[in-house]
């Protein structure tokens, strides 16, 4: 090889140094591809339409790389220092790209602008890397060799990154930490370069200090990733999060904005304090007010104590048994001042007995009988909860309802989930019960449905003429009207839900997919 510069003579190309150099090419290429994939994946998750997102992000990114390559001609002197500077910039911008994108989505309306700005910036910087590196290495090796080796390792790195991303990085680290990890790789290469090209570098010490600073920032970022996700979560719930806890059973989040208190279980809205009275009055009173002699009432689910609050308005009710799976849920709603204000301290009433148990197993394991029962479970969005909406469950429940009594089931929306609603009604019929479906409008939920069910030998249900006081929504004429269904909510032909064939979960999934685009 012809030595063209004094540099090369001083360094003399040793095999392992060149291997190390090409491995850093590989790492740089991998980093570049990871940022591109992180941006594409994030855009797909947040905006949907993955084909569009991947296509536009990759296109923009490649174009920006072209811009970078073109710009590289204007960098003439101090190539090594420039290269290190670029590495550090890529490391810090790329490393925090997914964090920035999450925060942009949570806090701004300009997510797309931030996305493409970041993609362009990273693309330009990555586009600068390889031409610069080639020019630095040109002084060491023959041109033919440099082009061949650099491009080979560049493409190898791309392959490694594209395989590692879906298989290892996303499942093990997630998007936030994956990007940071590769930011660290970029910064580490910068630091390493200060030693590798020490002879070509002027301000070595300050360069190294900058590298150390960037590395430290990224490492701290990695360790604080959990906090970042929490900040992002605050915004996934649009209001301020005042309580958040992962219990053994679920993720409980309470948010507050002015006087609106909202409960989310596993990110599903359970109630908004602004209109929950509509839901809970409609859940309890059409049934319970029609049973003036009711003394014992059972509530399954409903650990928020709001249905119990309505039940306690009946002086004739002597005891309420509340069965809820999660002790943290009932503890929270029995003690948090904002929540006890909302449920009127219902869970600490001497008339109320709390049981923390899995409802189906609890029903199977005792013989208590109740005059009225309220079934207030989360919507049947998976096979586990779906077990609580089966004919077998309703048969087990019926054994706990006294002669002449009935029970009411929250039955999801007859408008958005029409098949699901009527499948629940069909399931109750399949269990041999007489059904009286009705519905109410709850602004934060939309049209919502309930079903009263009674044993076939029970007297025919008729809506109550007298309701307890005080109520905010229901009146006797209102109750009577709830049992008529307008055209777009009328019965459809559906199958009952059974333990061995949970059609309800499939109806529900299909119907909510259709509106949750």
């Amino acid at each position, binding site marked *: 090889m012809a030595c063209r510069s004094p540099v090369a003579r001083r360094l003399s190309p040793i095999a392992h140094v060149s291997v190390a150099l090409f491995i850093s090419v590989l790492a740089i290429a991998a980093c570049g591809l990871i940022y591109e994939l992180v941006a594409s994946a994030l855009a797909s998750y*947040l905006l949907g339409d993955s084909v569009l997102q991947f296509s536009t992000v990759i296109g923009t990114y490649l174009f920006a790389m072209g811009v970078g390559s073109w710009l590289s001609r204007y960098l003439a002197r101090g190539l090594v220092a420039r290269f290190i500077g670029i590495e550090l910039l890529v490391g810090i911008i790329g490393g925090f790209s997914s964090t920035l994108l999450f925060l942009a989505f949570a806090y701004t309306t300009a997510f797309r602008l931030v996305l493409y700005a970041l993609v362009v910036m990273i693309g330009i910087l990555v586009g600068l890397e390889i031409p610069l590196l080639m020019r630095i290495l040109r002084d060491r090796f023959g041109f033919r060799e440099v082009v061949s080796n650099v491009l080979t390792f560049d493409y190898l790195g791309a392959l490694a990154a594209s395989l590692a991303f879906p298989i290892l990085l996303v499942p093990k680290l997630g998007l936030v930490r994956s990007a940071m990890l590769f930011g660290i790789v970029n910064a580490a290469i910068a630091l390493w370069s200060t030693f590798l090209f020490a002879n070509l570098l002027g301000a070595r010490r300050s360069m190294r200090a900058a590298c150390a600073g960037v590395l430290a920032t990224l490492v701290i970022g990695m360790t604080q990733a*959990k906090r970042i996700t929490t900040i*992002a979560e605050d915004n996934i719930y649009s209001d301020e999060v005042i309580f958040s806890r992962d219990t053994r059973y679920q993720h409980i989040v309470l948010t507050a904005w002015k006087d609106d208190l909202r409960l989310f279980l596993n*990110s599903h809205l359970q109630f908004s304090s602004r209109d929950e009275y509509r839901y809970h009055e409609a859940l309890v009173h059409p049934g319970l007010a029609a049973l003036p002699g009711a003394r014992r009432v059972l509530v399954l689910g409903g650990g928020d104590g709001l249905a119990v609050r309505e039940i306690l308005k009946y002086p004739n009710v002597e005891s309420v048994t509340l069965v809820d799976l999660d002790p943290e849920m009932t503890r929270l709603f029995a003690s948090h001042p904002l929540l006890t204000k909302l449920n009127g301290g219902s869970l600490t009433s001497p008339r109320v007995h709390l049981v923390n148990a899995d409802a189906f197993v609890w029903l199977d394991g005792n013989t208590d009988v109740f005059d009225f029962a309220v079934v207030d479970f989360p919507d049947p969005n998976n096979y586990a909860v*779906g*077990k*609580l909406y089966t004919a077998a469950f309703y048969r087990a429940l019926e054994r706990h309802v006294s002669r002449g009594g009935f029970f009411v089931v929250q039955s999801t929306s007859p408008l958005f989930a029409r098949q699901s609603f009527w499948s629940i009604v069909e399931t109750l019929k399949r269990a041999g019960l007489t059904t009286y479906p009705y519905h109410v409008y709850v602004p934060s939920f939309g049209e919502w449905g309930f079903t009263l069910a009674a044993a076939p030998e029970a007297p025919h249900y008729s809506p109550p003429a007298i309701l307890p006081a005080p109520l905010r929504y229901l009146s006797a004429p209102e109750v009577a009207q709830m049992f008529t269904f307008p055209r777009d909510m009328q019965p459809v032909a559906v199958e009952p839900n059974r333990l061995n064939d949970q059609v309800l979960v499939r109806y529900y*999934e299909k119907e909510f997919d259709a509106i*949750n685009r």
Partner: protein
Amino acid sequence: MAINRREFIAGLIGAPALVRLTRKAPPQIAGGFVDDGMKAGHALRDGTGAPTPRERQRVAVAIVGGGISGLSAAWELDRRGLHDFVVLELAADAGGNARSGANEVSAYPWAAHYIPVPGPRATLVRELFEELGVLRDGDWEERYLCFSPQERLFMHGEWHAGLEPEFAMSLGDREQFRRFGELVASHRASGEFTIPSALGMVRASPLDRISMQAWLRQHGFTSPRLLWYAEYACRDDYGASLSQTSAWAGIHYFASREVDEQGPLTWPEGNGWITKRLLAKLGHHVETSAPVLRARHEGGRWRLTTPTTVYDADAIIWAVPAFVAPYVVDELRGERHQTSFVYSPWLTANLTLDRWPAEHGIEPAWDNVIYDSPGLGYVVATHQSLRTFQDRTVWTYYHSFAELTPEQARRELLTRDWAYWRDRILDDLARAHPDIRDCVSRIDVLRLGHAMIRPTVGFLTATERAQPRKLSRFFRAHSDQSGLSLFEEAQYHGVMAAREAMAVVGGRLSVAGSR
């Protein structure tokens, strides 16, 4: 499902926090081999351990073997009013392939774990299930039918619903599945493929003369997915590969089942639930750890020797596999090593999981199969629980040794230690659940050297099946007579043997209950 994108992200960015970056030493996994009766069985074979029985007992019928065929024979005798019988079981627990275990998490099966919803011709099964409250007024009790989701298949890095490898199927694959379905339907319509099989068998089927592999080839089936599916069925029901299974048996698997089956029927402890219910009623007739070491015909009666007792019986119901008989029954000693019956070895394991492993695709099902795995997958024992929330679970892992000869497989079972099977099982499961090792706290392994009869080519016409050696007052009840190791077959043959036995000892009915 109503997961919105925000919720998805919350999970996506939250989940990594749970995954430790650096791996600690893998947690200790407890466990070992469970008692498989191998020692007692081999002592029988080798004639070791001279018995010194001290007691003598007189019974009308001695049932040898406390598996489903033996217990079904007992059930039949009992409900027909003959109570003077004893069931002699070699192992410490009755049940045979319908044995089960339990720990603090769940009850779990050791072998057979379900029964397809019986068709109209399986009258005996229906009668038993009416007695046990599984069938009421023509309706199957919902909580005994397998809950949703029932089956899933791991393929291309993801779990898919159902066992047919439908994911990304080519047009050719689809066409072959359709044609296969049509052929099966025509065989089903012929009425020859029934459960119990004896009811449909009017003549020896020509399909008994070729292997399932040859039959599939003859009909031009080449789709790797269809072949996998057909072989999975043979491995799962017969412990045999396509080439080791007769076409009759291979087709029987598909053609004997109802098209719109709503089942199967299953319980956390699998068919052990039926064993428990039968034992609750008949357990006082059952002697466990009571291997029959010798049986001989003397003076018109059978004399059976167990380690503690000599029984004088008017009749024997033979409810253990046929290959054992020449080692025990004096009159059959000449037939050792002559048998053409082949028995498939199996390995089952129960894994206790302290948490559910990570995975992709649909929710855990009852039966979970990994495509192209040497194992048969796993069944979730807690699937039939009525709970909505379960943080711990028990999985029953099944492995039949279709890739080896039965002799090779038995040698493997005898020589390999527990740690070997632990690693093999975990390696297999890790394909679908990369973090399985961090979830499992215990693995108990059961080795079954002769788990089930194998319906090999020519099985139906083999002389020892078609014309078994007739002995006086000796009635064969084991399911190996049918070539299909199914609950329904075991029950059918058990009940039929009981009826034959009652016909000859009928005279003793007057002293029923004298025992």
